[in-house]
């Protein structure tokens, strides 16, 4: 079976600055992969290349079976994306947001109707289907955004800091949704600043100055580096780097 994500020496330079420096890794289908790194370590740049939004300077990568150079449009159609900052239209209702994204991804009217019904029921949001998204608590918005990112049944979902500022119970409900998606075979590629969340992932990588400084399952990484938590490993690797002056 083909890997969900495959990258080899993937590199991105901006002028003389190397934002992503020859990173190589694979992510299996149905895996939850945590993509960690300090601010400015190159996570966003790497994610933009993998989601077909930015051409690499060199190296190779395939995502959902498509080439990042030759087939970026196909990649976009087969992945889901959710960011903390923007995912839903605040002045559209819950239902309108689902319809909008369904339309963007080319679902038929009938598909949109059945998908809307299914999502509203799963999220227990039927009673506020016609409320504007801005009136929803943050946690509900994030859960809705995650579902909307999967409206077209993508095989991979990219989540960029999905749980920032969310209360601890809702944060866990969110991770349960991630587990359920992975259980259905969806690959989840997630970034977070909550180091304890790294421990929910099957495998993680820690980026430092454009390179992958550590990669493995959280258990392996803690054992091999003799640290009690991923937080400690992260601080050890990322301290005194150019992005943390």
């Amino acid at each position, binding site marked *: 079976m083909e890997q969900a994500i495959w990258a080899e020496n993937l590199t991105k330079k901006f002028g003389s600055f190397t934002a992503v420096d020859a990173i190589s890794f694979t992510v299996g289908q149905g895996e939850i992969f945590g993509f960690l790194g*300090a*601010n400015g370590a190159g996570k966003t740049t790497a994610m933009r290349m993998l989601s077909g939004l930015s051409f690499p300077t060199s190296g190779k990568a395939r995502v959902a079976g498509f080439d990042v150079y030759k087939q970026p449009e196909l990649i976009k159609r087969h992945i889901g994306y959710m960011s903390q900052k923007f995912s839903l239209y605040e002045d559209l209702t819950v239902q309108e947001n689902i319809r909008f994204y369904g339309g963007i991804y080319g679902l038929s009217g009938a598909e949109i109707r059945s998908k809307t019904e299914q999502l509203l029921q799963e999220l227990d949001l039927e009673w506020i289907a016609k409320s504007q998204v801005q009136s929803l608590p943050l946690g509900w918005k994030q859960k809705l955004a995650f579902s909307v990112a999967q409206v077209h049944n993508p095989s991979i979902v990219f989540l960029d800091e999905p749980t920032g500022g969310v209360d*601890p119970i809702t944060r866990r409900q969110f991770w349960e949704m991630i587990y359920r998606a992975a259980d259905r075979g969806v690959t989840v590629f997630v970034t977070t600043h909550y180091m304890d969340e790294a421990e929910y992932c099957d495998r993680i990588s820690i980026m430092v100055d454009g390179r992958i400084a550590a990669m493995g399952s959280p258990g392996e990484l803690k054992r091999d580096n003799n640290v009690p938590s991923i937080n400690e490993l992260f601080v050890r690797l990322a301290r005194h780097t150019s992005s943390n002056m």
Partner: protein
Amino acid sequence: MSIYINHISKSYGPVKALDDISFEVSKGELFGLIGPDGAGKTTLIRILTTLLVPDAGTARVLDLDPVKEFRKLRPHIGYMPGRFSLYQDLTVLENLNFFATIFGTTIEKNYHLIADIYSQIEPFKNRRAGQLSGGMKQKLALSCAMVHEPEVLILDEPTTGVDAVSRKEFWEMLARLKERGITILVSTPYMDEASLCDRVALIQNGHILQVDSPASIVESYDRPLLGVRAQNTLRLLEDLRHYPLTHTAFPFGDSVHLALTGEQTDGELLDYLQKKGHTELAIEPIAANIEDCFMELMTEKIA
């Protein structure tokens, strides 16, 4: 007493942002206001920093009323708002100069107050603030909030969205400021930062859940709590929710924290999970952390 909050309430239309909040912060204390987005942290901070008037209740900061005596109070507070508040198109030095000037002082006069923090970004003093990394922006913002020698420092989510290394450094800076006797009120959505404070208020939906030292909060958790692991965490979670003695079951990384409604007999849970077909099982009693406490208090409020 440096900060005194007495039955404060504030609504925005139908939304009750703060509902009858009371607590005190002692002089020289490092006090954490811990809660998720929408809990009311910023509203409370804006009331204390004279930027917002409460609907009901009173507050005193350095024995001054933030509503009636705001002009007298302002020079004594250092305030770092949640959103990056510096002028992006001014340089590091220009920003610092600006804040020093509006408070009627100079960088030279108070350099000793900010030397520890500012010296780290001084090599970049001619760089525009907008071009700084997250960690450097934080250091500049803190320098600007300190340059007029405030007695109280009020920081609204200074570590949100910042990576773990910068967060750690920031808390180290706060600890050094505290040693100089400055009172610090700091808000954060990161529960793990509670342990770095002398005392904390846990806040959710405009209500204070608990005010105490982090150690006392953790000690006051009174349910039997188990850490449970199995090969399949998702199925484990589902099965634990149906276990008769379960109060709550929450995932924590690759394990589940299981709070029980009462004591159980030895082997009862293991037996139950084995019958459900779980493998690689590990069950051990664990001590609660701040997040366990926060979730327990949230659950009590909902119930």
